[in-house]
């Protein structure tokens, strides 16, 4: 198997993953509990990816400099809670990150 075949196989498998439940639930009715579960996938996935993403960035920076992204996350959380808009997380969080990074000793 060369690089091309490996990429093709990984791509084909990924596409079948994407198509799997769509084809399955077109033939049979999705049970009520699965319907409830499917509504929880996106919030759970976003929370998992967010927590892992923030932790990975912080671990790469060391104890002192990790304060900057953590401050940015705190600012983002407060902004979203106060405005109700998810976009506020970036609009407030990124400037907070730049300021906190500039203020912290290198």
């Amino acid at each position, binding site marked *: *198997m060369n*690089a*091309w*075949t*490996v*990429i093709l*196989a*990984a*791509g*084909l*498998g*990924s596409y079948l*993953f*994407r198509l*799997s*439940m*769509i*084809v*399955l*639930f077109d033939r049979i009715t*999705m049970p009520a*509990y699965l319907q*409830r*579960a*499917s*509504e*929880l*996938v*996106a*919030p*759970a*996935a*976003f*929370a*998992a*990816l*967010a*927590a*892992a*993403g923030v*932790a*990975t*960035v912080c*671990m790469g920076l060391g104890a002192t400099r990790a304060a900057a992204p953590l401050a940015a*996350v705190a600012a*983002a*959380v407060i902004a*979203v*809670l*106060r*405005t*109700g*808009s*998810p*976009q506020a*997380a*970036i609009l407030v*969080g*990124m400037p907070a*990150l730049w300021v906190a990074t500039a203020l912290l000793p290198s």
Partner: protein
Amino acid sequence: MISLRADRRDIAAGARTMVPWLAGIVPFGLVIGVSAVQADVPTLAGWLTGPLIYAGSAQLATIGMIGAGTAPVVVVASALIINIRLIFYSATMARYWRGTPLWWRMVAAYLIVDPSVAVGLDGYRRLGRGRGHAHYLGGAVLLWVSWLTAIAAGAMVGAGLPAWLHLEFVIPLYLVGQAIAKLARPAQRRAIFAAAAVALLALTAPLQLGIALAITAGVAAGLTARPAGPARSIHPLKPSTEVPR
């Protein structure tokens, strides 16, 4: 019924909803382009991970492992394990695409990835099933074009973005915003806190299995909440618009 000609405004709205995601996704695409050039992989093969695998983490892992000479079966298995979450997303979108033409399901399924699911769900909830298709397509196609362009640009220009921008942090922040905004419902609140906690505990799990584990734990925790519970506004000045049942 899929009628895209009549839904140009919804297609444009979907594309606009996708724009905030691009701020973090484009730098990620550039990084993948750079890594494809740096690894011992033909540049075109590295770029083809974009249209074929179309999921950043799996693409990075595939390119890195091929470059490192990992056994092909291990590379394919690793990419697929990283992409297990796509099965969850497929189940999430299935209810909206039930009964649609096969060509639509095949195209729409191909475009499934984290941001397109987020934008798509937003459209289906606000606009309903018919107009939601156009909204999904608008966002997903813009993402696809931007992603492939960013990978190609990364392969050509290399790492020239200023490091002080810390653009790698845009995606985590955006996801924080998406998660916090969904805290209103008790079931979603449980899912969010459980998934975040398990993701942190399983951070060192190999092949990003921690993410799949965290999603499973989050969904399980959410299912323990009473169904159709009242939504509590996360905005202190705006009461919930939903009537408790």
